[in-house]
């Protein structure tokens, strides 16, 4: 090994900051691509990454990690492991690949933006590794499903999803474009790396990895923690950026950037991970409820971390806690009922034992959300599964792009009103699922005002014909791709018949 330790020469790889002469600061670091928020140029040069790595160390480590992963994938591909996965887990994995694989590749565009427009050479170097990392994650998370495509054609969505207007993908694009593909370098360091990767991705990946191994999905259980080791490194671009903003008296700006993206991430996270943890993961392998996971990792560990930087919990903290008890239950009902509109096969996850677990983790679940499932189970047992399928569409929030579930939150006793929030701007009516979503919209109206939700498009004549089949075609879902009950309604027949509740109807 070369004689000089990394610490002896590393600073010479990261001091390439200089005063421009032949171009202006605004020409080289324009505000749109690199919002300096008024922090003096030389202050940015103090940017100091907590995790040091050299290029040689990077390629040595990464080559070793990839060699191991491809070996696992090769072995798993020759086995029957995939064919024998639990249907709930298959739903979780298929949903994950569609929502995440190409999005991670796109995060590489965000990293490349920080690697070009980050305001210190040290930062640009870390982001250069980040751009490579996200290339890796996009490629691995498409390569793995590509190898299993002959076993599960739905894995086509690992590649196809972001080219479609499927509603969950519209919501994901709306989030991720705002967070990285179309965000400036400084905001992105706070919003992508600190808020999303340090907070949420950590939770999603570590949680799913642990579950995958218990379930026997060695492929996914090897892939995800390997990705997480990269995330844990490049996520550390947030902390030094935050320190510089706070030291320059820009704490309010950092707080607003954080608050906005934390809420945005929460909504999509509740949809993707909430369903995976509380309904799709087989009961025997669950260690936490989604709410417990949120409380432990985000509300305790993560909040402690950002308090260390002088930030405070967001202003909507009470609403977040409120939603943690119910919103993903509402989303799960919605996804199941509108299952033709998703690319995976949702499982209900409400057999007798699962219901007992849900009641234990969310006291009152049986008397609130359980009643909708009682009704759907009764319809299925009565030979009318068509009554558990949609004839119309829900209202969608103009901020998070997810269905407005306030009636379910109200009915379950968590909200004071079933009504959504509405706002008229320049003669156009916008609908929001919650105060934080409206607040997000009002922070940067120029970013969002002209965007149309999928329901705006349905009502505005963009989706033709404006029917369920017309909308499914618009979403890129062929009849055979539309989601179906993942267990062929086993759950309904395993449930004791229910006597209470209204007569058979499609209400859910």
């Amino acid at each position, binding site marked *: 090994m070369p004689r000089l330790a990394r610490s002896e020469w590393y600073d010479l790889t990261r001091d390439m900051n200089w005063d421009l002469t032949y171009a202006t600061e605004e020409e080289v670091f324009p505000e749109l691509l690199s919002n300096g928020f008024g922090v003096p140029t030389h202050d940015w040069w103090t940017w100091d990454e907590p995790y040091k790595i050299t290029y040689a160390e990077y390629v040595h480590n990464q080559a070793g990690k990839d060699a191991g992963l491809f070996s696992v994938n090769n072995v798993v591909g020759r086995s029957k492991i995939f064919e024998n996965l639990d249907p709930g887990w298959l739903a979780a994995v298929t949903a994950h690949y569609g929502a995440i694989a190409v999005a991670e590749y796109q995060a590489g565009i965000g990293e490349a933006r920080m690697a070009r427009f980050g305001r210190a050479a040290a930062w*640009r170097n870390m982001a250069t590794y980040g751009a490579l990392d996200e290339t890796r994650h996009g490629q691995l998370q498409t390569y793995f499903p590509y190898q299993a495509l002959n076993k599960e054609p739905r894995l086509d969505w690992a590649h196809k999803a972001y080219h479609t207007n499927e509603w969950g993908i519209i919501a994901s694009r709306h989030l991720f474009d705002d967070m990285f593909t*179309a965000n400036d370098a400084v905001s992105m360091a706070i919003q992508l790396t600190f808020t999303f990767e340090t907070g949420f991705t950590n939770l999603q990946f570590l949680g799913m990895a642990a579950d995958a191994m218990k379930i026997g999905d060695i492929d996914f259980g090897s892939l995800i923690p390997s990705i997480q080791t990269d995330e844990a490194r490049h996520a550390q671009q947030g902390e030094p950026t935050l320190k510089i903003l706070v030291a320059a008296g820009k704490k309010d700006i950092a707080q607003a950037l954080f608050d906005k993206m934390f809420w945005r991430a929460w909504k999509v996270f509740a949809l993707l991970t909430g369903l995976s943890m509380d309904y799709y993961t087989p009961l025997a392998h669950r260690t936490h409820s989604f709410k417990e996971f949120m409380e432990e990792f985000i509300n305790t560990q993560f909040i402690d971390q950002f308090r260390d930087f002088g930030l405070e919990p967001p202003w909507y903290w009470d609403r977040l806690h409120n939603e943690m008890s119910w919103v993903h239950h509402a989303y799960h009902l919605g996804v199941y009922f509108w299952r033709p509109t998703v690319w995976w096969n949702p499982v209900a996850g409400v057999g007798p034992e699962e219901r007992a677990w849900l009641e234990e983790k969310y006291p009152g679940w049986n008397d609130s959300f359980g009643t909708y499932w009682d009704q759907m189970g009764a319809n299925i047992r009565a030979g009318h599964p068509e009554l558990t399928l949609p004839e119309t569409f829900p209202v969608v929030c103009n901020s998070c792009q997810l269905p407005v579930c306030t009636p379910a939150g109200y009915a379950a006793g968590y909200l004071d009103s079933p009504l959504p929030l509405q706002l008229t701007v320049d003669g156009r009516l916008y609908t929001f699922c919650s105060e934080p979503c409206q607040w997000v919209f009002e922070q940067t109206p120029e970013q*969002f005002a002209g965007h149309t939700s999928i329901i705006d498009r349905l009502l505005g004549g963009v989706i033709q014909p404006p029917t369920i089949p017309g909308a499914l075609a618009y979403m890129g879902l062929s009849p055979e791709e539309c989601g179906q009950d993942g267990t062929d309604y086993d759950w309904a027949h395993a449930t004791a018949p229910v006597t209470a509740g209204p007569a058979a109807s499609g209400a859910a």
Partner: protein
Amino acid sequence: MATTQRPRPKTWSLLGDVKRRPSSYEATAAKFNYHYKREPAPFEMDPQAPFNRLYLEHREGSPFTVEDWEGFKDPAKLTYADYVMLQHDRETYVDLLTDHHEAAESVAALDPAWVATLRDLFVPLRFPLHVLQMTGLYVGQMAPTAFIINCANFQAADELRRIQRIAYHTKSLAVGHGDDLAETSTARGPWEQSAAWQPLRETLERLLTVRDWGEAFVALNVAVKPALDAVVDQQLSELASRNGDEYLSLLMAEFQLDAQRSRDWTTALLGYAVEQDPAMADVVAGWLATWQPRAHAAVAGLAPLFGAAPNPLDPALVVAAADDAVLGVAAAATR
């Protein structure tokens, strides 16, 4: 259970009904850039949002445009896994090379007059090479297809590689010949003020103002980078050899492999563009009319430093080598 029963697809549905199953290189890059030419706007936000306008103007609206960029392929067909494996091997070689010369104490034996040349010519290099890294990543965030993005990002990482080896050797020189060689000011000072470096700095600062993705690619990969690669990887290697510095000569020569890979994908992309639309030759030529003279001026500024070495290289030959390198790459856009 229950995987979905349907005809078993050969590849991603978006790649069509193919006869041959696409390679993992193709399957993990083809059509990844979903927002390119997306309607009504690239990103899922207000179609008139500033970022949508930026990409519509400088990517979709670039004069450097063909019908289908997805047809371009990296001649090296590198996936991420291939790239890190390749460079893992090359970095292992450089580690061994460094071990060998450290055991031989070859830095301590360098002629002080040659170290003085290195102070002027070698030590500041990390500044301009960092601009090549930055601009590579600009191309990486603006290019229309992942097949180009990946090439650009790997190229930028190669710049980081070269900078770090230069930094390491700078520290080695400081240990043997004076701590101030490893001071930031020893590099930044000439970069900001010395006359020899100013034409290069002017060219590179102007490069950082380019927003059109096609112009950024042409200016960087066809003009500035081939010229600088010729100076840094070939001419400096030759100069080191003439001055008895075998380590530096071999180290700089090692980077010729990375530079060749850059030229390979650059000429492939130029050739692809002109084949798709012959009018692209004029587009490239138009930008080169600006950037070729700037690259030339940058090298002409540095070249006298080669003439000042104890065993010098003729500055005119250094400039000619850089000019030839640019012409060699640019020729791919005229065939």
